[in-house]
């Protein structure tokens, strides 16, 4: 089920809210059970067979986590258990996500002749696997423990984050699932949560989904061997940069808004990444909970920056390559990760050379943003392309290698129509000139770990529960809902495929 579907917005969500708060009056445990069951129903709507993976995964990780939290095992036993738990999770992820890539690679290298298994990727497997690995490691380090199965099951399956994140830490969620305030409906949570949800819905439905067809045309044409001009190549890459931004940003807002309706704050996952002045900052703003996971559970265990600069740069590259692979079973994702690894290495090396300047001129900020955005955009080409050949074809056209600057015949060119170009221009202006949702809502802090706004008075838009704000949010909601209901335009979220 998609957050941007009629069934979710008008049936699933109201029904789940109503049942949760009604049941909570009688019993909190029963309310959490209801929310867990609702989350599983939400998950099963896409394909009920996926429950056969999710539910055993929750059960197994809960048992392993309980063993790690107990006092009966010695250090060696606990280490063996956590190693087994992590390995089992990774094996499950490997089987469902990477086995076909592995077989395909072996076949291509003529090492063996094994047919592809065509294993279907269960929705959200990367997210719930990482969430549970983090839990096991934290339990092993005795940072967390969870004796209540229902709470644990809800922590993993909680529908606002289940299929596309954010990747949660047990420690930041469990106190909220136990807090008394969570079980009482609060007008403030409804007002702020609905507003954040509708802002996210607008980003997804009106911005991202309107840019998607042009992106599809460009990448499809390149995939079929059509020679693109530089202008067409750049239009595809830039439009995709905007599409994925608003798709993921919209999803993240919707997840935060939905969760807040239940009185639970999710961690911030997206913080105006295209405003980053360098690639290091980009990764502090894009998919923040994945960056946090990779830092805490991969980069630091690898040695982080403690073993010298060369090792640090190597660690960065390893983390980014694996981070790329986490997104999908394709070498294009590895190249995408490798490109970002390279960018980060250069960025770190640059900072070592000149030192990290604390004050920057407006011009250097602008130049930094522009360069960062362009580098990220080039890398997106590999992220979006279904094959390496497609990616290379578009990349070549973007850099004018064997391609014309503009199409010879404008009539047969694959350039965006003027209205779509206008949406892209507006989207670009929003990205660079507007405050983000968290900044707009900063008086009410709808997400965890959101950076505190030093001076809210300097923001051009600040949400308050006024009629004017209701009119603006209401207009955005109507535009989005009308598109969903009347145009029947319900696009998948890009991050659902990971």
């Amino acid at each position, binding site marked *: 089920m998609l957050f941007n579907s009629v069934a979710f917005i008008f049936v699933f969500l109201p029904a789940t809210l109503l049942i949760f708060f009604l049941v909570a009056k009688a019993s909190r445990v029963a309310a959490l059970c209801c929310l867990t069951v609702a989350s599983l129903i939400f998950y099963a709507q896409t394909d009920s067979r996926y429950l056969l993976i999710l539910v055993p995964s929750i059960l197994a990780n809960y048992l392993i986590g309980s063993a790690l939290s107990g006092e009966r095992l010695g250090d060696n036993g606990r280490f063996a258990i956590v190693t087994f738990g992590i390995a089992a999770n990774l094996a499950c992820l490997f089987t469902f996500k990477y086995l076909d890539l592995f077989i395909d690679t072996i076949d291509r290298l003529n090492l063996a002749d094994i047919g592809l298994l065509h294993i279907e990727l269960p929705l959200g497997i990367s997210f719930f696997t990482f969430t549970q690995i983090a839990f096991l490691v934290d339990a092993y380090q005795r940072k967390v423990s969870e004796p209540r199965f229902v709470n644990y099951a809800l922590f993993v399956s909680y529908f606002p984050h289940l299929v596309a994140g954010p990747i949660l830490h047990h420690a930041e969620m469990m106190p909220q699932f136990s807090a008394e305030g969570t079980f009482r409906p609060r*007008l403030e949570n409804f*007002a702020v949560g609905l507003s954040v949800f509708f802002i996210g819905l607008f980003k997804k439905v009106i911005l991202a989904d309107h840019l998607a067809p042009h992106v599809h045309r460009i990448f499809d044409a390149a995939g079929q061997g059509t020679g693109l001009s530089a202008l067409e190549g750049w239009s595809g890459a830039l439009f995709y940069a905007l599409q994925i931004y608003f798709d993921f940003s919209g999803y993240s807002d919707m997840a935060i808004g939905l969760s807040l309706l239940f009185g639970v704050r999710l961690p911030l996952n997206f913080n105006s990444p295209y405003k980053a002045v360098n690639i290091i900052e980009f990764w502090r703003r894009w998919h923040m909970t994945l960056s946090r996971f990779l830092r805490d559970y991969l980069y630091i265990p690898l040695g982080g920056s403690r073993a010298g600069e060369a090792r640090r740069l190597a660690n960065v590259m390893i983390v980014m390559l694996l981070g790329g692979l986490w997104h999908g079973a394709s070498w294009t994702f590895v190249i995408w990760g490798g490109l970002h690894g390279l960018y980060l290495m250069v960025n770190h090396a640059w900072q070592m050379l000149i030192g990290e300047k604390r004050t920057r001129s407006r011009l250097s900020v602008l130049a930094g943003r522009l360069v960062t955005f362009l580098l990220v955009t080039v890398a997106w080409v590999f992220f979006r392309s279904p094959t390496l050949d497609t990616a290379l074809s578009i990349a070549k056209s973007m850099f004018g290698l064997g391609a014309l600057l503009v199409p010879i015949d404008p009539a047969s060119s694959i350039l965006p129509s003027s209205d779509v170009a206008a949406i892209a221009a507006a989207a670009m202006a929003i990205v660079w000139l507007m405050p983000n949702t968290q900044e707009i809502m900063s008086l009410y802090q709808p997400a965890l770990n959101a950076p505190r706004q030093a001076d809210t008075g300097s923001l051009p838009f600040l949400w308050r529960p006024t*009629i004017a704000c209701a*009119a603006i949010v209401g207009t955005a*909601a109507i535009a989005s809902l009308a598109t969903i209901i*009347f145009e029947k335009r319900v696009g998948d979220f890009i991050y659902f495929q990971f």
Partner: protein
Amino acid sequence: MKSYLITLIVIITTALAAMMSLAAIGVYACLECDVLPFQESKIAALTPDVETVILGDSSIGYGLDAKIFSELSHQKTVSLALTGYNYGIGGAYVLLTEVLSHVRPRNVLIALSAQTLAVEMSKLKGKPIRGLVQAARRHPRLLFTVNREISWDVAKEIGVEIFDEQLLMDGIAYVRGVRPVIADDFFKYDYYAPGTDVVQLDGSFTYSLGAPSHDYDVFFQKIARLCNANGLNCIFMYGPLMQKVVEHSQLTFQMLTSQIERAGIKVIRQSPIEIPDEDQGNTINHIQPRLRAAYTKKAYDLVADSLR
């Protein structure tokens, strides 16, 4: 927070309700309904001297010329043929109701292709229900008084249509003053402009129509009741049909005839007027346009004795 939430919810629900209302107006406007507004305009212009009304589908729309029929029968005749799968017998029922609100003709000739009546409604992807909603948009009571199954299907169809983008646009256009435009061809041919090409059937085509559907029985019953209540001479004839299909579908006609007569409508002949290969039009139940007069005569000869 309370006033904010109330304002937000009111804005959203009002706007959505307004859009749904506009889509409902779009259904009423019927800007893309082609033949339906044309036939409705003829009903609106009916005078009391009309004696015979012909209801049916394209087999009779193309196969019968009302002027020639009037001359042959010496009775003022009006053809109100719609199309088969889109309107069929349901559309005929609604048009007859509308006719009766204007005039009381002596004869009502219902002429439908057996091909139309042999296909279950569920296999037509909602077309007959959509057509029924269109035809009965000015008589909504008719939509929910056929039977429970039809009422349920109509409710589902309306549920879809009030969220339809094109109907929303049509509703906005109607509010702005746009009205259905009836193409000149309708006035010229008293129906759609006919095509001169000939149907090409592939090897997989089965000439036997198979068992008839019972989905349409209820409409025949409704028409029969209307005819009895208003003292009309209502008769049924099959629209012209490809000769080979007629030869292979005798059992279908026998069963269909039995169903229609059980509903209370007299069937003129248990078999359709056959279309030989040389007369075949662009579907198995269409004739070549040049033969319209000849087939009108055939139809007249068939029903002449049954007309009052």
